[in-house]
């Protein structure tokens, strides 16, 4: 479960969002400049809300009234950025293992194999990020986030930097992830078609305000 009720002023732009989502995939939908990325960064703890609360999986990670702000690295979230942000000095195997090491988790070969198979990245393990295509990089980034065993997976336009054919290459993996990985996700996109395929709930944002909340049918109503 994810509960968000925050306001945040960023220069001229004010963000005010309030919603509670039980869905497996919460889609944050809106045009560019609607505040989607600021909202997901606030959930990640990269931005600190001016006022309000954020509750992830029953744990209050932000509560301005109580002075609570759990730093990003202790939130046990996974974050897949638009640009994969793989560590260039580590090979793919080390990239995938990074979250496990940082969280002090014991090795879990079964989970490792499941994620590697799910994302079809077994052949890439000994390569360097510089040698990968955009789509491959994004699949590794997904695996890296999953293998840190997050309570919540945040995805900020993970297909945004890919061309149409690459998008179609990745989308089935995301569907499988939703159905098999068992980790709730927040998925940011400005592409209604993408969200119709993936999301179970939609938060619609416009100029920093939530304008609609509900099932995927709000996409049809809103557009």
């Amino acid at each position, binding site marked *: 479960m994810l509960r968000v009720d925050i306001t945040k002023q960023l220069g001229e732009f004010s963000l005010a969002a309030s919603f509670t989502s039980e869905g497996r995939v919460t889609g944050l939908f809106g045009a560019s400049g609607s505040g989607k990325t600021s909202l997901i960064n606030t959930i990640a703890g990269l931005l600190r809300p001016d006022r309000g609360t954020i509750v992830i999986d029953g744990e209050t990670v932000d509560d301005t009234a109580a002075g609570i702000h759990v*730093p990003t690295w202790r939130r046990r979230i996974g974050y897949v950025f638009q640009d994969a942000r793989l560590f260039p000095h580590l090979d793919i195997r080390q990239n995938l293992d990074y979250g496990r090491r940082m969280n002090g988790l014991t090795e879990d070969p079964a989970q490792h194999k499941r994620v590697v198979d799910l994302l079809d990245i077994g052949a890439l393990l000994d390569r360097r990020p510089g040698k990968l295509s955009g789509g491959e990089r994004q699949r590794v980034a997904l695996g890296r*986030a999953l293998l*840190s065993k997050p309570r919540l997976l945040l995805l900020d336009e993970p297909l945004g930097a890919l061309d149409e054919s690459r998008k179609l290459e990745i989308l089935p993996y995301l569907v499988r992830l939703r159905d098999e990985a068992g980790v709730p996700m927040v998925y940011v996109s400005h592409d209604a078609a993408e969200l119709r395929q993936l999301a179970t709930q939609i938060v619609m944002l416009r100029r920093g305000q939530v304008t609609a909340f509900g099932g995927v049918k709000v996409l049809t109503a809103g557009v």
Partner: protein
Amino acid sequence: MFEISPTEWTAILLSLRVAVIATLVATPFGIALAWLLARRDFWGKSLLDAAVHLPLVLPPVVTGYLLLLTFGKRGLVGGWLADHLGIVFAFRWTGAALACGVMSFPLLVRPIRLSIEAVDRRLEQAAETLGAAPWRVFATVTLPLALPGVLAGMVLGFAKAIGEFGATITFVSNIPGETQTISSAIYSLIQTPDGDTAAARLVVISVVLAVGALVAAEVFARRATARLHGH
């Protein structure tokens, strides 16, 4: 011409020892300071930045004299260190290392700072979302990615340390076997009649060491850069 006398050997080995120790001891401080200057905002930051660069712009004899006042046997810090820890800098090779470390510090810090500034902060952010505490972000992402700059800074600092003259001779004098480095040996030799040949030998050795350091820096930087670009 190329028979190096025992006195000259002593000076060469001493110079190497002084420069190696100065560089190794200064590097952790240099990295910490470079990180502070590159990544943190705090009160007095420009003052600290200026202080780091001071040895570069002050006359070396002034730096040496200030070291003597501070770290000499009756100096504020030097007296305390001698009484409590038994560490003496005055007229010892350790003092030469201190002088060289201070004089080469700005050259050490600058490349490290630049390379830390060049590390993509989005990668540090990604590390944080994967559960890395700030110090581990530094140890596993920032520092490895800044490694070419760290190596370049170390080599530059070493090259400066091995040639340092003014501050060293002011602080710890020119005692053969204890504080007489290559530079002070050359200085002594060109003041003695018939010292020219020996001086020339040491000059050649200085040039070789300096050029060697620059070549090493270049090789390190290339290797590290290739590694970091994910190839």
